[in-house]
C-alpha cells in the first residue's frame, strides 16, 4: 500500500523539480533567443532537403559569384552554387559534429571517470594521468594531429574532437563520484549490502548528471567552433559536400569580389554558437546547486 501511495507522490515531485528547473532556465534573459536558434538549427538540419531552395551541389556556371537577390537570397559561389542551400546543408555537418563528439566524450569520459573514482588506487592514478596527458596537448593541435592520421572526413573529426573533450568529462565525473560516495546515503546503501554497480547506477550516476549536463551543453558550442576550424583547414568533410568551415575557406579567395560567400556561413556559425552559449548558460543557471533556492 505504502509503495502504491509513494510512487505517484515521488513521480509528481520529480515532475515538479523538472518543471522548476525548466522555469529557472527560461528565466535567463537570453535563453529564449538561444532556444529559438537551437530549435531553428535542428529543424533546418533535419529538413535540409525540403527547406533548401536548390541542390547544394548543383553548379550553374551562368550565375557565378552573383550578389544576393530574390533568386539566390545569399548569392552564389565561384561555381554558381546557391550559398543559402549550402549553408542549410552545412548545418547538418556542424550539428552532427558538435553533438556527436560531445555525446561520445560524455559517454567515454563519464565511464572513465566513474571507473577512476570508484576503483581508486592504481586504476585511478593511471586513468587520470592518461587524461592529464591528453590535456597536455593544445586542443586544436591534438585534434589536427588526430584528424591527420585518422583521415579527412566527418568521422575523423568527430573522433578527434571526442578525444579532446573526454578528459574534461572524466575529471568532472571522477570528482562527482568521490563527493557522492562519501555521502551518508551511499554508506547506508553499502551497509544494506547493495553491490557496487547498483550503488553506481542508482545513487552515483543520477546525482552526478547535473554538472555533466551543464558542461556538455557548453561544450557543444565549442565543438561546433572546433569542427568549423578543422574544416576551414581542410580536415573536415571534403568538397563538394558543404560545411560552414570549408565554405568560408573556399570563399576567402573571393573576399573582394564576393564577400557573401564568407559572410553567409560565417553568420550561420556565429549565430548558432551564440545561441548554444545562451542555452548552455541557462542550463548552468538552472542546474547549478549554488543558485538553487
Amino acid at each position, binding site marked *: 500500500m505504502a509503495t502504491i501511495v509513494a510512487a505517484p507522490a515521488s513521480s509528481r515531485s520529480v515532475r515538479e523539480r523538472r518543471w522548476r528547473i525548466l522555469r529557472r532556465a527560461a528565466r535567463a534573459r537570453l535563453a529564449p533567443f538561444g532556444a529559438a536558434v537551437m530549435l531553428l538549427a535542428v529543424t533546418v538540419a533535419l529538413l535540409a532537403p525540403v527547406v533548401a531552395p536548390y541542390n547544394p551541389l548543383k553548379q550553374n556556371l551562368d550565375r557565378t559569384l552573383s550578389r544576393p537577390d530574390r533568386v539566390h537570397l545569399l548569392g552564389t559561389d565561384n561555381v554558381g552554387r546557391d550559398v543559402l542551400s549550402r549553408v542549410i546543408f552545412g548545418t547538418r555537418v556542424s550539428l552532427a559534429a558538435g553533438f556527436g563528439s560531445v555525446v561520445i566524450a560524455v559517454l567515454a569520459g563519464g565511464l572513465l571517470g566513474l571507473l577512476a573514482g570508484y576503483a581508486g588506487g592504481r586504476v585511478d592514478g593511471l586513468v587520470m*594521468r*592518461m587524461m*592529464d*596527458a*591528453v590535456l*597536455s*596537448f*593544445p*586542443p*586544436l*593541435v*591534438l585534434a*589536427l*594531429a*588526430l*584528424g*591527420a*592520421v*585518422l*583521415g579527412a572526413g566527418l568521422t575523423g573529426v568527430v573522433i578527434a574532437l571526442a578525444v579532446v573533450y573526454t578528459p574534461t568529462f572524466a575529471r568532472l565525473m571522477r570528482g562527482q563520484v568521490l563527493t557522492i560516495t562519501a555521502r551518508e546515503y551511499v554508506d547506508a546503501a553499502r551497509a544494506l549490502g547493495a553491490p557496487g554497480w547498483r550503488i553506481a547506477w542508482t545513487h552515483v550516476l543520477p546525482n552526478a548528471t547535473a554538472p555533466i549536463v551543464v558542461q556538455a551543453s557548453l561544450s557543444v*558550442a565549442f565543438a561546433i*567552433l572546433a569542427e*568549423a*576550424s578543422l574544416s*576551414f*583547414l*581542410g*580536415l573536415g568533410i571534403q568538397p563538394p559536400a558543404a560545411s560552414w*568551415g570549408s565554405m*568560408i*575557406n573556399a570563399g*576567402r579567395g573571393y*573576399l*573582394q569580389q564576393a*564577400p557573401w560567400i*564568407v559572410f553567409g556561413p*560565417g553568420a550561420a*556559425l*556565429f549565430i548558432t*554558437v*551564440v545561441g548554444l*552559449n545562451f542555452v548552455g548558460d541557462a542550463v548552468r543557471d538552472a542546474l547549478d546547486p549554488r543558485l538553487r533556492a
Partner: protein
Amino acid sequence: MGLLILRRLVATIPVLLLVTAGVFALIHLTPGDPIDAMMAESVDDSVKRELRQTLGLDRPLHLQYATWMGRLLRGDLGRSIRNQEPVIENVARRIKPSLQLAGLAMAISLLVATPIGILSAARRNSTLDRFGTSFALFGICMPNFLIALLLIFLFGVTLRWLPISGYVDPMEELWDGLRSLALPAITLGLALAAVITRTLRSSMLEALSEDYIRTARAKGLSDGAVIRRHALKNALIPVVTVLGLQLGTLIGGAVITEYVFALPGVGRLVVDAVFARDYPLVQGVVLLIAVGFILSNLMVDLLYGWIDPRIRHR
C-alpha cells in the same frame, strides 16, 4: 620555492612519459599502412621499403618505441621525410614569427581587456558595461578565422591600410615588420581579450563587494584609488589563471592565424606537415608544442605562488 619547483617538475614526469607514448602512437593510428598514407601509390616499392626501414616501422612495436625514446632522450626528434631536415631545425627556423605573434597578441589583449573589464565592473549595468559584455560574447563566439577574414576585408581589402599576408621580421625592419604582424596579432589578441574581459569583470565585481573595499571607501579614498590600489590587485589573480588556461587556445588560434595570414611560424608548419602527410615532422612538432605547453602551464602554476602567498604556503 625551490622545493615547489622540484615537486612540480617531478609530477610532470609521468605525464610527459604518457605524452611521448601518445605521440609515438600517432603514426600507428593511421588506418592501413602508414607508409602508404605518407607516399603516393606510384612511388616505387624499393623507396617505400627504404622509408619503412629508416623509420623503423619494420620492427616490433616495443623495439620501435625503445629506439624512438632513446633518440628523443638524445635530443633527436627525427627528420622530415619531405626536406630531410631534422625536426628541431625546422622548428628553430619557424619559432621567431610565432613568438613575436604570441607576444604582440598578448600585449594587445591586455591593452584592450584591462580598461574594458575594469570599467564594465565599476559601472555595472551601464551602457559601457553592456558594450563590455557584448564585446566579450562576440570574441568568445567568433572563430579566429572569421575575425581574421573580417579584418582582412576591412583593413586589407576595403581600406587597404595593412598587408593581408606575408611576414617581415620586425627585428630587421621595425615598421614593415609591425605592419605585417598587425592583423594576425589583432586577430589572436581580440579572441584572448574577450576571455580576459569576462574574467576581469567578474573578478572585479567580486573584489568590489568585499569588506576591505567598503573600508577603503569609508576612509575617503577616491573611486580610482580604491580600484587601482585595492580591487585590481586582488582581481588579477583569476586573470592569471585564465591566461594559463587560455595558453592552449592561444596556440590553437596561432595555428589558424598563421595559416590565414601565411605567416611562416610553427603553427603553419604543423598544418603544412599534416597536409604533406609528413608524419615524423607532425610527431616531432606536436611533441615540442605539448612539452612547451606543459612547461608554460608549470610556469603559470609557479606564478600563482609568487602572486598569491596563500598558495605558496599551502
